Structures are given as structure tokens and as C-alpha cells.
């Protein structure tokens, strides 16, 4: 059993204990239990293991160019990681594109390290069998913005356009169920089965709380999940086809969501059921 697995077992035991202790209180919701669980392990989120893995990857020479990512420009200058995530997505002059964290990491891994984009994009998410480098790198970078106020700018016309397109994607109904993001995420105080749903359209507090706690460690999956993964799995449940990793559509949607979280302190990587 590796450390990840040991850790998972300990967590599951802790969660079980927490749930049964609370079962006596009739009106305790799942959300309350998870909040209590978060409190209980606030000294150590298992996402920290992924942050450490990502930091190691960031600082280790790799790829055909045997280069590290320490010169990667995440928007605040080459090598500046602190606070970078709180300003993403943003417009980048060198690529002439609006990029979220993961599409920007893709740029750095290809341009600095000489890795192939399609190879990284083919396996962008962690699974129980295999970790994902780009996902761990993302966990590391977001951790360096903990406590920093979200300040995503739409001053650049392309960033403004991404925001506008993202808003339209949020409302775009299609597929066999006619679902859009907004079907579940545009009303306050509703839930699907027992899962509370944040209103990302018109409830600033909901939008901030949701956005600032991703990426997150998912207890039910035993994995740290990136924001691109979050969107990917939403579209799966929306009965949509699969969004391409780090595509313009996903970056635009992320821009819309990130801007609606502006003003709140970034609080990830988070911890979810």
C-alpha cells in the first residue's frame, strides 16, 4: 500500500466516524457533514500530496529539452507562481490567446520542455491507476494562490470576448436532455438528489464559494481533481459529447466562472465529497 492509499483509508475511516457520530442528529445534511469533516482535517487536505508532486515536477528537468518549468510565465512574469492562479484565465501576448491555468501549463510544457501537446492532452486527468503530471502541476500552482483575492481581468478585448462567449456556453442548451450548465446552476437553494447546487449565474456568494474551492481532493474518488476535470464531468452529466482538453470553449467557460468569483479569496485546493 502506498502513502496515497494509506492516507485514503485513514480518511475514509475518519469520514465514517464523523458520519455515524452525526447520524444521531436528524436534521444534519450531507453538506453539514462534509463541512464538519473539512473542519476535522483542516490541518491536512490530501490534495497536499498532489501539490508536493506538482512542485517536484515543476522543479525537475524533463522532456526532450531537459528543462524545468521554472521559467514558465503564468502571467506575472517568468517563474512567478505566487498569486498567479487568482488572475487566470488571462490574455497572453505570446500565444495571442486567453488561457486558463491548464492550457497555459500545456504551452510551457511544450515550449520549454519540448513535450508533445497531443500526448499531454491525451491523458490530462488523474486516474486511480496513474497520476497526471499536468493535473499535479495545476494543484501545485493553485496552492500558491491560497488566500489571494480573485482578480480576473476582462480589460483586454479578447478576455472580454472570452467572458461573453463563456456566458453563452453556460446557457447553451443541447443534447438528448436539453440541458445547459444553467439547468442546474442558475437557481439558488436547489439540490440534485442530496447534492446542493451552487447558483453560478446570479448568486455571487455561491459562485465564489464554488470556484475558489476547485481544484479539489474528491474523497469519493481518492483523487485530486483539476478544474478542467470539473468541467469535463459536468458536460458528461449534461449528456454532452466530450469537451476537448484546454479548448477555447472550456477556457471561455472558465473565464465566465472565474470572473463571477472575483473579490473572494482563493481557498483551494479544496476538499469535496
Amino acid at each position, binding site marked *: 500500500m502506498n502513502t496515497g492509499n494509506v492516507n485514503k483509508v485513514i480518511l475514509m475511516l475518519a469520514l465514517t466516524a464523523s458520519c455515524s457520530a452525526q447520524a444521531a442528529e436528524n436534521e444534519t445534511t450531507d453538506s453539514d457533514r462534509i463541512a464538519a469533516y473539512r473542519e476535522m482535517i483542516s490541518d491536512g487536505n490530501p490534495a497536499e500530496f498532489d501539490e508536493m508532486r506538482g512542485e517536484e515536477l515543476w522543479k525537475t528537468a524533463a522532456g526532450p529539452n531537459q528543462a524545468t518549468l521554472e521559467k514558465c510565465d503564468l502571467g506575472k512574469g517568468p517563474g512567478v507562481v505566487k498569486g498567479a492562479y487568482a488572475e487566470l484565465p488571462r490574455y497572453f501576448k505570446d500565444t495571442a490567446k486567453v488561457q486558463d491555468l491548464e492550457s497555459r501549463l500545456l504551452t510551457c510544457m511544450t515550449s520549454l520542455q519540448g513535450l508533445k501537446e497531443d500526448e499531454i492532452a491525451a491523458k490530462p486527468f488523474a486516474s486511480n491507476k496513474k497520476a497526471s503530471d499536468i493535473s499535479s502541476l495545476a494543484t501545485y500552482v493553485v496552492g500558491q494562490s491560497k488566500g489571494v483575492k480573485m482578480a480576473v481581468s476582462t480589460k483586454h*478585448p479578447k478576455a*472580454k*470576448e472570452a467572458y*461573453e*462567449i463563456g456566458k*453563452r*456556453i453556460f*446557457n*447553451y*442548451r*443541447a*443534447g*438528448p*436532455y*436539453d*440541458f*445547459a450548465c*444553467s*439547468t*442546474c446552476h442558475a*437557481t439558488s*437553494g*436547489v*439540490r*440534485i*438528489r*442530496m447534492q446542493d*447546487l451552487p447558483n453560478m449565474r446570479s448568486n455571487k456568494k455561491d459562485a465564489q464559494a464554488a470556484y475558489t474551492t476547485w481544484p479539489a481532493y474528491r474523497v469519493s474518488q481518492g483523487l485530486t481533481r483539476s478544474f478542467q476535470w470539473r468541467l469535463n464531468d459536468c*458536460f*458528461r*452529466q449534461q*449528456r*454532452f*459529447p*466530450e*469537451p*476537448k482538453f484546454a*479548448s*477555447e*470553449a*472550456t477556457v*471561455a467557460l472558465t473565464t465566465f466562472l472565474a470572473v463571477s468569483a472575483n473579490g473572494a479569496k482563493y481557498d483551494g485546493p479544496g476538499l469535496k465529497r
Partner: protein
Amino acid sequence: MNAKQIFKMIMAASFAAAILPAQAASLDAKTAEIIKRDFRDKGIAKATRVNQDELQAACSKYVDNVPAKLKHKLEAEQEKAVKWPADGKYMGDWKAGEKLAQSGRGMTWSDKPEDPAGGNCYNCHQLSAKEIAYGTIGPSLLHFGKTRGNTEETQRYAYGRIYNAKAYNACANMPRFGHMGILTEAQIKDLVALLLDPESPVNK
């Protein structure tokens, strides 16, 4: 001012114009273009699923607040396309209906082609008092039959509403279970029975 600066100014001016509210149509077009390009087949979820029918396009464009005239036109079209049961019977087996109502599976890229779709009912509605894990996106349907009575008119209404909720409210959140081929006629009848049969837990 050199030629490069002038060029930059023209570009900036034309770009600014492109995102004025009056140009929303071009943003709509660009969004559609991006969506068509950036989604791909996965499992049973084919890329063509992003292509909208007239109703989906209208509800997206007007953010579920379609102008009244268009709304009525869309609803009439949806109603016209409802396939009513050939035998004139609307009620099936409420027990099969309860099973269907519990299942939230179906039609995602992780579902297999042979996996039958569920009704997804409890995802959004309260139904039986016994099931406490119900969603609240849709209204509570507890005691649906008890309060309305099990008349043929009510049965037909429930059947139509499940077959195509958009015939009653163009931009309803609820999927069009019959219209989109998610559930069969027999399955919809089972759900009607779940709602209206006096023996169903919904009416206990």
C-alpha cells in the same frame, strides 16, 4: 503616427465594435462555431449532440425567457409532435415506475449503448414519502394523484407532460422523455401509474 500604430487603432476599434451589445448576434455565432469545433465523440455521446433544434436554440438565445409569441409557437409545435398511446391507455405498473424514477442513469458517455436510461425523476422531484434523497430543481410531486384524482384527463396530462414537458412550457428544465426517445411508451405509462395509481407510494 506610423502605419503600424494606425493599423493597431483600426484593429482595436473594429474589435471593440464586435463586442457591443448590438453585436450580440455575432457573439452567438462565434459561440456556436466554437462549440461545434471543441466537442468530440466519446462513447455513445456523439459530437453532433451539440447541434441544437429550434427550441433549444431559442431557449439558449433568450436565456429561457422566450418572447410570448415565439414561446406559444414552440409549445404548439411540441404538442403536435406528441405520440399518444395507440390503445388510448395511459396507466402502466407503478412498481416498474418507481424503479425507473429511482434510476438517474442513461445517455452519458460513460453509459453503454445497451444500458437502459432511467427516468431521473428523484434527481429533481420529491415523489414517494419514503424516499428522502430527492432533488428540488422541480416541484414536489408527493400526493400527485391524491390531490388531482385519477381521472382520464389527469392521466393524459401526466403522460403528455412526461412525453414532452416543453409542450406545456417551452423552456422547462425537464427533459422531453418521449420526444427525444429517452423512455418508451410503456415506460412513460409506468411513470404515469407511479404518479396516479392510488396504490402508488406517491399517494400514500
